[in-house]
């Protein structure tokens, strides 16, 4: 654990540091774990491309697109690392409004399955701005909470943070994107908790949210969302309907066994039994093809990645860095637990992607931005603390 400094480093302190000093503070592990996870994601993308009979080197193949996004993500990550995160504090409010603007634009010109307005086409690539919204909101909230670090015992700051989230949350719900709105809630909760906000008021807030669930169920959720939420409770009752995905997903995972069927040898997704096996249920495919060993590797990588994320936060000399890391950590943990929980039948079906593994450019780019900023925070501390 680290040495505590009374004051965060001044701009001129680190501006004069050598490149070598930066490098020593760079968290090579963080980058490596992220890269390994992204590699696994690419492997699954390759598998799903091959089994559908598409040449993986075809420009339209999911694999090549994934490769392209990975390349972009590395550039974005590096750029974010080099970029001084402290400027984010200055731009927090513009970022907030840009975020709302992009989400608004998605509603107007976005496309998606079943009339949803989620994706915006950028050339040949599709981008889901609700993914980016998660990172942007982490920046905004981190700034908001860091600025108010002395008043975190007050209910006003907590409610303020919530209110800040409401417009984003509402725009996402309108798409409709239940999954992202849940992640946003998870991020908010995690950041409030980690920022040191009053436990008393957080408990009251949690109680209030739980009390609101019946109302949200009645007025906010659409029928298909309700069906997905209840389907997991008893998938066998309706194996062809709402419980179908859950059942088939568990068959995929279970049939993988210890070592899996081998990459590209899975049948559950290849024969279309597994719904959306290359996106939300990508982990089911991974567990089927790479087995328990592969799944455990994914878990271990996420655990060590989270450890590095939390360490970056803990090492941070300013509150912004700490709370920002808490946001990224909350986001990753929430998504891992809810996605995997869904795949293995512990939690209801919500469209939440598994970071790195679920195919999708926006998710990867957003992670690259988030982790890049974390690296930026890492290298701008006085010294590396392990």
């Amino acid at each position, binding site marked *: 654990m680290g040495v505590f400094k009374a004051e965060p480093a001044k701009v001129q302190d680190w501006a004069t540091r050598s490149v070598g000093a930066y490098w020593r503070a760079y968290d090579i592990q963080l980058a490596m774990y992220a890269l390994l996870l992204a590699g696994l994601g690419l492997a699954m993308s390759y598998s799903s491309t091959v089994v559908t009979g598409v040449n993986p080197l075809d420009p339209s193949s999911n694999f090549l697109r994934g490769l392209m996004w990975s390349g972009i993500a590395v550039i974005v990550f590096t750029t974010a690392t080099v970029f001084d995160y402290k400027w984010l504090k200055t731009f927090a409010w513009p970022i907030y409004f840009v975020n709302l603007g992009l989400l608004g634009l998605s509603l107007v010109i976005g496309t998606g399955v079943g009339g949803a307005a989620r994706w915006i086409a950028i050339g040949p690539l599709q981008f889901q701005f609700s993914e980016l919204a998660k990172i942007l909101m982490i920046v905004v909230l981190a700034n908001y909470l860091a600025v108010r670090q002395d008043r975190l015992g007050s209910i006003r700051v907590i409610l303020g943070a919530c209110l800040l989230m409401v417009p984003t949350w509402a725009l996402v719900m309108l798409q409709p994107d239940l999954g992202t709105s849940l992640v946003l809630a998870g991020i908010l909760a995690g950041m409030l908790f980690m920022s040191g906000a009053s436990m*008393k008021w957080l408990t009251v807030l949690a109680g209030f949210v739980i009390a609101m669930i019946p109302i949200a169920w009645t007025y906010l959720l659409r029928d298909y969302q309700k069906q997905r939420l209840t389907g997991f409770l008893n998938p066998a009752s309706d194996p062809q309907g709402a419980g179908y995905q859950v059942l088939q997903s568990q068959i995929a995972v279970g049939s993988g066994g210890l070592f899996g069927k081998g990459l590209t040898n899975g049948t559950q997704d290849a024969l279309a039994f597994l719904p959306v096996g290359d996106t939300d249920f990508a982990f089911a495919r991974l567990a089927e093809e790479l087995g328990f060993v592969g799944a455990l590797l994914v878990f271990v990588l996420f655990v060590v990645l989270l450890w590095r994320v939390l360490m970056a936060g803990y090492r941070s000399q300013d509150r912004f860095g700490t709370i920002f890391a808490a946001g990224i*950590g909350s986001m990753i943990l929430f998504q891992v637990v809810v996605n995997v929980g869904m795949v293995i039948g512990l939690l209801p079906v919500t469209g939440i992607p598994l970071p790195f593994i679920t195919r999708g450019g926006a998710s990867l780019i957003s992670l690259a931005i988030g982790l890049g900023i974390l690296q930026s925070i890492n290298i701008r501390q006085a010294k590396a603390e392990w």
Partner: protein
Amino acid sequence: MVDERPGRERQLVRFIAFGIAALIAISGLTARMVYLQLVSAQTYQKLAVSNSTFQQAIPSTRGLIYDRNGLLLVANLPSYSVKIRPSDLPFSQRATVVAQLAALLKMDPADINASIDGNPGSTFDLVRIAQGVPIETANLIAEEHLALPGVEVSVDALRHYTQSSLLSSVLGYTGAIDAATLKQLKSVGYLPDDLIGRAGVEAQYETQLRGTYGMETIQRDATGRQIQVLSTDSQPIAGDSLTLTLDTKLQQQALTAVNWAMRAAKLKSAVLIAMNPQTGEILAMVSTPTYDDNQFAQGISNAQFQALLNNPDKPLLNHAINLQFPEGSTYKLVGGTGALADKKLTTTTLVQTHAYIQIGPDKFWDWNKRGFGAINILHGFADSSDTFFYQVAQMLGVERLSYWARQFGFGAPTGIDLPGEVSGIVPDEKWKQDTFGQAMLPGELVQAGIGQGFDTSTPLQVLNAYAALANGGTLYQPQVVREITGPDGAIVRPFVPIVLHKLPVSAGVLATMRVAARMVVTTHHTYNLDAEPFVIAGKTGTAEFGVRDAQGRLPYHNWFVGFIPLHGDVSKPDSQLAVIGFNEDANTVGNSATEMIKYFLQIHFGVRHDLRKFELMQKGNFYGGN
């Protein structure tokens, strides 16, 4: 929470709390993964396999059928079948799809609906809608699969009967399996859309003809689309082929004679059977009216089938074996042979014949109202004297008469290898008690002596009895299938004549009865039959049945049964051709069955002149028992 001031220490606590929460959550996930992937892996692996694969039968090639000379009678033609999988046909679209299919297939929508509703399997099983569909129509339907959900086109082998209706009553036909049969045969691999032998040889030899279906494992996707054959678990084994005992040429000749008799005597139904008395082989077997088995092979419509089913002349039945009739005077063979064997008579014993014999208040008339005077068995049989055989029956008594009837094969199925054979009736004391709860009356006994009263037989039983006479006393089991040949051409079952039993009677008695049968012809009882260049011995029969008309007359069937001695000498049991003609409800001036057989033999032996007596074929009031 007294101290609400944030600080590094509190943050450390929360970092640790967050880390612990993360570890607990991911441990929970891991625990579930252990359960799914390590504990229950086998269960889920099975589920994944059954999800994505299914076993599908590979139909075997049905065996072919040849006549005794190797002429192909039944072949398999590849043809397009249209089938529906009801589970894939949404109920809301059913009416539209059925209407479209009906238009494309030129079928009655009601027939299609009946097929779907009569589906013997589950709604996931295919239902056969049409077979023998022209390729253009099949292609059209295959292309329209989006507009016709649940409709599938497949290539099946269709039975083709090369001789059309010539051999229908023997060959039978194949048809869709029904629910009850499917239930019985599912365990031996029958499928809901299977075809199965429904009549004749096709039904009798179903097991041999069908062969053994193979099995393959197919990979499918979630929509049920077949992806690939994963493995062939067992190869199909083609069915055995059959060689019949029947001779197509002889059958054609028989049919020509029958068709002439049908027209000339305005008959509703007739039977002609030819057999080799030395082996029991059936050489020809015509039963009219009949049907065209190709109509069945191509998928008979409900209306067509109902028409056949409701036809009062019963075209779907083989009248030679599926129906029983009073034998009339042909039955006198039983009494005559029995009386000689039991030594009630010798060839020289004279019996006084009368116009009638009186039993109590009842008179039992001879067909010849003058009687024949005192005559021996040869003349009694040749003249077919009824009063002679009334007395013969009285000499024998009911038990001996029925004993001899059974010796000749009456009262029991002959065991011919065709389905649905009836056994006929030989009345005796036990039968009378069981059926009517009373003893045989004396009048019933004398009637039994001339094949009237309770006596009934199939035409085949009568022929088989005379075949035993012709061959010197061996009762054979008639057969229509000569050999069974495996798919590799090897003979699986060679032809072996099957002896039911030997008649317990001396060769001399049977020789006497054969001479008597020859005298039937030579005494001109059969008009000019003895003028033919072939030697034939036989017996006519006129069997009354039913209810008397206004003049007190009964309708009657005509019989003629006979055999051709190999070298023209009836004393020798060497005949290789026995024939029977039966004309149901004929009511002709003369014996139309005799004329029918005469014509058949004229054609068969290539006789130049035509000795048919057309005037005998007129409807008339011929009456009595000749």
